[in-house]
């Protein structure tokens, strides 16, 4: 089952839900499938582990990454790059906007809300049920409500990103899948896809999963580990 997302997709979620890792891998995955992809780093609140860390790997495979100017790369300041407005006015086949965590992280989206509404964007929430505050359906919905209130956008879909990083097993993926299905059943949210570390894909019984699975080639790693090759 293929991931066919197109248009402007805004990726939101709570802190550490894995938005950036999902955005990087989704961008590369869709690019491999022939789509024209651009990515914007709208994470104005997180000091480490942002999309900008993977800029080089994305650009090497022909994905344009819109991030603040190099001189502001390490600034602990909420800088919104003016190029983002252009990106929204003239979107690529797939344009991914990687927002910051929680409601605080999406405050920037409210500033773009008018143009985003005109452009018919979709807002999708990344959920990792192994993270604090999103280990229950109520927790996920509370985060969703807070994000919607601040961003002035409606969340219409979810991405299941169940993982414990290096300690993830196939059971975690399947338990996470059941959790995300229950979340979708209780709401009108659409399940866009779930993720799985690329090494675990062959261990998953695909007959039990009725949605696309995005293989994750881990990019955001600490300095004593090497990132997976993106392609």
């Amino acid at each position: 089952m293929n991931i066919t997302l197109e248009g402007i997709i805004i990726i939101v979620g709570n802190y550490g839900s894995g938005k950036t890792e999902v955005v990087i891998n989704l961008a590369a995955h869709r690019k491999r499938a022939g789509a024209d992809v651009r990515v914007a780093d709208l994470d104005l609140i997180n000091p480490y582990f942002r999309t900008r860390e993977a800029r080089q790997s994305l650009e090497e495979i022909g994905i344009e990454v819109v991030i603040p100017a190099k001189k502001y790369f390490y600034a602990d300041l909420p800088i919104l790059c003016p190029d983002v407005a252009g990106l929204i006015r003239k979107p690529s086949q797939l344009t991914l906007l990687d927002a910051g965590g929680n409601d605080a992280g999406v405050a920037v989206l409210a500033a773009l809300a008018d143009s985003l509404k005109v452009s018919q964007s979709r807002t999708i929430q990344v959920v990792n049920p192994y993270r604090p505050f999103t280990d229950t359906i109520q927790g996920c919905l509370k985060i969703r409500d807070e994000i919607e209130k601040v961003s002035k956008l409606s969340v219409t879909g979810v991405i299941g990103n169940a993982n414990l990083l290096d300690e993830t097993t196939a059971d975690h993926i399947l338990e996470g899948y059941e959790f995300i299905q229950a979340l979708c059943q209780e709401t009108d949210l659409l399940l866009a896809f779930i993720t799985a570390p690329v090494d675990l894909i062959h261990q998953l019984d695909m007959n039990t999963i009725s949605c696309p699975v995005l293989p994750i080639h881990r990019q955001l790693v600490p300095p004593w580990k090497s990132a997976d090759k993106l392609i």
Partner: protein
Amino acid sequence: MGKKILMKGNEAIGEAAVRAGCLNYFAYPITPQSEVAEYLSRRIPEAGGVFLQAESEVAVSYMIFGAAGAGARVFTTSSSPGISLMSEGLSYITAAQCPAVFVNIMRGGPGLGGILPSQGDYFQATKGGGHGDYRLLVMAPASVQEAVEMVMIAFPLAEKYRNPVMILGDGLIGQMMEPVEFPDHLRTDPTDKNDWATTGMEFRKSDKPNIVKSLFLDPNALNENNLILKAKYDRMKAEDIHYESYNMEADYKVLIVSYGTMSRVCRTAVDNLKVNGFEVGLLRPKTLFPFPEKKIRDAAAKDSCQVVISIELSMGQMVEDVERCVQGRRPVKWYGECGGNIPTPETVMDVVTSLVGK
């Protein structure tokens, strides 16, 4: 042990304190540790505790003093410049023999420096920072799980010594995510503090009030207080030195001393070099004060060891303690960066092999 969850270091530090039975947290936000406050602003009220964002770090340190002096379990978190501002209070709290836990998620300095990881506060944490003859018991975690465990044991240790304990992590410890579990067996009940804290006269066995203070104008009384503090620091050296040895059973040519996340890079380098037939030992102090003096002295004296190197995210601070321990028996070198970049395993491999030739 509970269920494993994926947590950012800063969140895990906050949760560990709550699980350790600490329900008083006063703090002022600063990158890269603000998520502790963010997390606890939600979590501590849920647990029935008190979260207070102070007007400054100076104010935080005296809120900690007040609460600790009144017998409460209390802690704070900050990052380098914030700890500088708290240092006056730390000196007072230590002089008054109050238990409290301080967490420093270090960023690059001096001055405002930057927001990326650093270990530039080694001297500040282990040699003072504030004024006077005082020491903190300093623990340095190398993983999020170890940060959890160190925070949980920091409270009983602070109470054991009636002295502040500092958890010294670099920015990466605060910002990185790892799976963690919270060991229930590390939860402890606060010790009875009625014999010294200002807990109220109804708890007193005599009519003598408890006075918590750091002012001793009588020279003999001040000297006596300093002797009491010194005896505690000597006891820490006897009872609470902790470290990890890695590949130390091998006939290593080089001994690396490294702590915190930097030691994890070194560990990867040690593994890679071992594959190439180049043996390197790694000694990781888990307590920076008290420092594993004898262990380093003995490890350096091993026949195969030609050179000792301190690898740290500073311009050469821990290396002075390593030199002190080695006592001139082997050459002691230093390597480090402190702009925010963390050396890669490949860099460490090059540095280490260049010390003895290939």
